């Protein structure tokens, strides 16, 4: 099976797609089990599985830790990883630039400002999500507008526009924090990319939209292949390019905004995962999209395990872990393109 997946007989076949996704699902499940097993109180995987069949017995404390703490955190990690990877992949296809990514394009910072403002005005969880989405969408429009010149988009201009817009919005973040109260200082820490805010409410607010948006984007996977070869090419091959792009930018910003509102800025995931997937599975978005979703979820669960265990009992923000892995990959990609 591994040979079938990795030896690239182009083009993609349904068989190879199925084999790839099966393997990635198994990988995700394995990592997820490890994710809820590891922590200050270690609960062996064998014991957890055994308790499901009645062969083993979990104590009340262990049960509480699993269900109320580790499971929500696991699900949140998977949503964040999957969502950011899919958003990154879609931005890369639309902009025809493998370096495009929610964090580098400043979209995450826009979401941060939206989130902070919502917290400052105590807008509640739904209001925070909406405000974060608005911030993300605003930055997306801004960066796109700045980078476009006479219908042409230059890679360097786009990246610099994103980084500078991000820097500006980060300054706004610091300003809000300086003006506002102590509560926001804690919020700031949380916005460095942290999964400790995992609550069932957060998951229920963000989860359905992230999943639904990903499914809608998946429907357009074939269109992204055509758009990745050029707008005129895609148009002449029958794609409603303008409509697909608008919908995709909107959903990409929605995913980013929602993810930021519950986890803060977790950078580079949308860069690392699509890049690895492209290396392993080729450039066809019909496999890249679901593969990035699954591998993104897997990656963030792993990153979360690291962030909880490396300096235990202290916790590193998960955004620091992803940046430590992602920044070198970005530089490598920059040298190559």
């Amino acid at each position: 099976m591994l040979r079938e997946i990795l030896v690239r007989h182009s083009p993609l076949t349904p068989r190879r797609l199925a084999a790839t996704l099966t393997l990635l699902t198994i990988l995700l499940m394995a990592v997820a089990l490890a994710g809820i097993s590891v922590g200050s109180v270690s609960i062996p995987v064998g014991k957890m599985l055994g308790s499901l069949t009645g062969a083993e017995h979990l104590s009340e404390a262990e049960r509480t830790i699993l269900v109320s703490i580790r499971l929500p955190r696991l699900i949140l990690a998977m949503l964040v990883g999957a969502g950011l990877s899919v958003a990154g992949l879609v931005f890369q296809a639309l902009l025809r630039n493998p370096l495009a990514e929610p964090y580098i394009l400043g979209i995450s910072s826009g979401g941060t400002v939206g989130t902070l403002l919502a917290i400052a005005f105590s807008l509640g969880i739904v209001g925070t999500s909406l405000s974060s989405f608005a911030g993300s969408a605003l930055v997306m429009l801004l960066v796109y507008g700045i980078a476009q010149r006479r219908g042409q988009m230059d890679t360097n201009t786009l990246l610099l526009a994103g980084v500078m817009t991000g820097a500006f919005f980060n300054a706004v973040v610091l300003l809000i924090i300086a003006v506002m109260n102590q509560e926001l200082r804690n919020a700031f820490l949380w916005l460095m990319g942290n999964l400790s805010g995992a609550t069932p409410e957060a998951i229920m607010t963000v989860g359905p939209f992230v999943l639904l948006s990903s499914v809608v984007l998946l429907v357009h996977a074939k269109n992204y292949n055509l758009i990745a070869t050029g707008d005129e090419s895609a148009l002449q091959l029958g794609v409603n390019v303008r409509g697909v792009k608008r919908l995709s930018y909107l959903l990409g910003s929605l995913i980013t905004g929602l993810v930021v509102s519950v986890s803060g800025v977790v950078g580079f995931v949308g860069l690392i995962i699509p890049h690895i997937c492209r290396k392993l599975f080729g450039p066809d978005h019909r496999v890249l999209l679901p593969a990035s979703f699954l591998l993104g979820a897997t990656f963030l669960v792993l990153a979360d395990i690291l962030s909880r265990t490396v300096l235990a009992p202290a916790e590193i923000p998960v955004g620091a872990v992803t940046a430590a892995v992602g920044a070198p990959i970005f530089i490598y990609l920059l040298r190559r393109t």
Partner: protein
Amino acid sequence: MAGGLFSLMHCLTIDAVSFSYIRTIPILREVSCSVQRGEFLSLVGPNGSGKTTLLRLLDRIFLPDIGRILLGDKPIVKFSRAELARRIAFVPQDGGIQFPFTVFEIVLMGRSPHTRGMAFENAHDRAIASEMMEKTDISHLANQPITKLSGGERQRALIARALAQQPEVLLLDEPNAHLDVSHLMDIFRLIKRLNTESGLTVVSVSHDLNLAASYSDRVAMLKSGSLAALGTPEEVLTEQCIRDVFQAEVLVDRHPSHHGPRITLKT
């Protein structure tokens, strides 16, 4: 009625079309022209005369400001995008593809207007893609990433993709730009053969007047957005006409093999 016969013969009708990218700078002014079914029409003219723009309008990549374009007797705005893609194929100038799709994947994309939604290409689609790679002499490159190919090889892959659409009309934007002389002849012979044997209608933008002279049934010459001349190569590619439109002194005589006009620069 005569109208029925008229629409049967006319494949593409350009009806008093005007277009500008920026309001104050008109690119095309009231161009009217019709392309017959199975005809090979070349669009020639100096840089900035509006040739490529006209070609884009024919595939609804842009919409005319004034006037309309018909495919058969139906305005192209009435077609769905996919329907149009099954009938008209446009070969853009090489835009530099960033992602390493293989040549086979690129050519197979030509089948997408014929496959539904998320469906995968079937054996029939693959067979057509293979056939077109064979015809454009890129079969040996099938598994190569398009990013690693030379300009001419990429050009041939894009032509193969357009042919895989199995269109009635093929629009070519300077297909000769990156091709070496041997592949240039191969590609034009192939297109001419599809044109004469299968009735493929071809509209080709070309900077090479001799190429236009040897393959076209008719030549349309544009000058700053207006149609300056339209007719057979003999009628259009004259010393007088080329002097007026291109401001170039040329010598036109008979080509020794195809007996059409042969254009030589005066030095």
